[in-house]
């Protein structure tokens, strides 16, 4: 009698182990080559390398969001023959920078409902107006905001590329432009499988002024009157030196 019971227990145990979901090994890992983009004197934009690996089949989507801010969109109108700002609308939770990179076109790997839920394209980016107003007006100003940011190179017009090396390793070059806002960006990597997002990982990227630029900015904001006086004195000294240097005239 003990034999069949033990065999049954063993069978159940083996079945449980075989049927249990695989855990412990992450489906997706990702990392950045550096987490701080140091804005210094010669800064004219910077490349950050994103790399990682996936376990099993799938596609990868990367979204970079810059620090959020409140942005006001102004519309010009003609008054007395000249164009001045006549209407405006403010939006909150507006990312200062937005970019996306994919290894395959987004429409091929995800349905629109998922794209919308995770704000994976500019059309579905959630920008909340500060004041309630008509849907048509919101749409008009929202489109203008996105267009303006695209012109400045802050919102990507085209998705960037993710390259796969083999089936598992992927890499992508992320470009932060010189006019990218200072602050903390979030880089989110999604693993897409069978038309759904199965895994995601977010890692921070800090764009910060360091060294001289940071000190100047800090000085200008914290010791404003002294900064102004220093600026004046520097200009005055330059003028005095120039006078001395060209005295023979």
């Amino acid at each position, binding site marked *: 009698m003990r034999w069949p019971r033990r065999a049954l227990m063993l069978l159940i145990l083996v079945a449980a182990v075989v049927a249990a979901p695989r855990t412990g090994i992450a489906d997706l890992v990702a990392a950045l080559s550096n987490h701080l983009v140091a*804005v*210094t*004197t*010669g*800064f*004219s*934009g910077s490349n950050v390398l994103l790399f990682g690996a996936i376990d099993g089949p799938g596609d990868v989507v990367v979204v970079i969001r810059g620090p959020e*801010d*409140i*942005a*006001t*969109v*102004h*519309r*010009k*109108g003609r008054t007395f*023959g*000249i*164009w*001045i*700002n006549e209407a*405006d609308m403010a939006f909150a939770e507006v990312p*200062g920078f937005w970019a996306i990179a994919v290894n395959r076109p987004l429409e091929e790997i995800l349905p629109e409902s998922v794209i919308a839920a995770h704000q994976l394209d500019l059309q579905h980016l959630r920008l909340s107006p500060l004041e309630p107003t008509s849907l048509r007006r919101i749409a008009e*100003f929202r489109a*203008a*905001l996105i*267009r*303006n*940011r695209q*012109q400045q190179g802050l919102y990507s017009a085209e998705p960037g590329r993710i390259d796969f090396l083999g089936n598992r390793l992927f890499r992508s070059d992320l470009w932060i432009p*010189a*006019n990218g*806002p*200072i602050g903390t960006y979030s880089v989110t990597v999604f693993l897409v499988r069978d038309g759904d997002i199965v895994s995601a990982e977010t890692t921070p990227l800090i764009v910060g*002024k360091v060294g*001289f*630029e*940071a000190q*100047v*900015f800090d000085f*200008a*904001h914290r010791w*404003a*009157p002294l*900064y*102004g*006086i*220093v*600026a*004046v004195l*520097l*200009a*005055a000294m*330059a*003028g*005095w030196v*120039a*006078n001395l240097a*060209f005295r023979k*005239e």
Partner: protein
Amino acid sequence: MDIYLPIAELAVNVLLILGLGGIVGFLSGLFGIGGGFLTTPLLIFIGIPPAVAAATSASQIVAPSVSAVLAHWRRGNVDLRMGVALLLGGVIGSAVGVAIFATLHKAAQLDVVIKLTYVAFLGVIGLLMLKESLAAIRRARTPHPKLRPRRTWLDALPLKMRFRRSRVYISVLLPIGIGLIVGILAAIMGVGGGFIMVPAMIYILGMPSSTVVGTSLFQIIFVAACVTVLQAVTTQTVDVVLALLLVAGSVIGAQFGLRAGTRLRGDQFRVLLAVLVLAVAGNLAWDLVAEPSDLYSVVERQRQ
């Protein structure tokens, strides 16, 4: 080679800024003007935000003004008494002007007002100068501007003082008033105000041309300095890196301008200057009336 401007928060080409400073310096050396009225529109044109452009060019003006005023001082051409009177008005005016600037900046109407004031003043002054200098060339007479007629309502103002170096006896309210107006404009437009002060000194105050330039430069230095400090405190839009690059370019350009200036005749000068002023005014006016390529513009809330 690009350099990152800490306050403007964007990168610009170093050579472009040096070149811009050089051109403005050249013109200021050639015509004896501050050049601020050129610097601000040119900076705006290359993409610097207008608030930063105006505030930073105010700081840059101090450099060539100091350089020139020292030269004039050595020749005894600075009327200190008049300068101080102008100064009193100028300091108050610049405070008022900076307050207006900050209010407009918050209301997002700053660009338009800067451009409008430029068009108005440059347009009027450019036309007057053009008329006067063309008439002078036609007459082929020595182009010295006429002093104002002997007795007008200006002479009836109280608080008269004797300004020995300029050899005039006028109400002290006049220079203070002129200084006030110039101070306000200096803050809004980011200029020294010389192009308003020099005609005002000649026609309203009746000063001889010998002391006009030196004294006006003296006042400009303090007004520009005042505007710079006030802007730094209220709107924090003075970019010292940009200012220093402009100064470097303009100081060198000014020397070439001075040398070129000795080869031109007085009235030819003034026609050229008038044309230049009108060109800048015309460009800005066109900017205001032409339909913008995008009707929409975005402003981020200022981060602390």
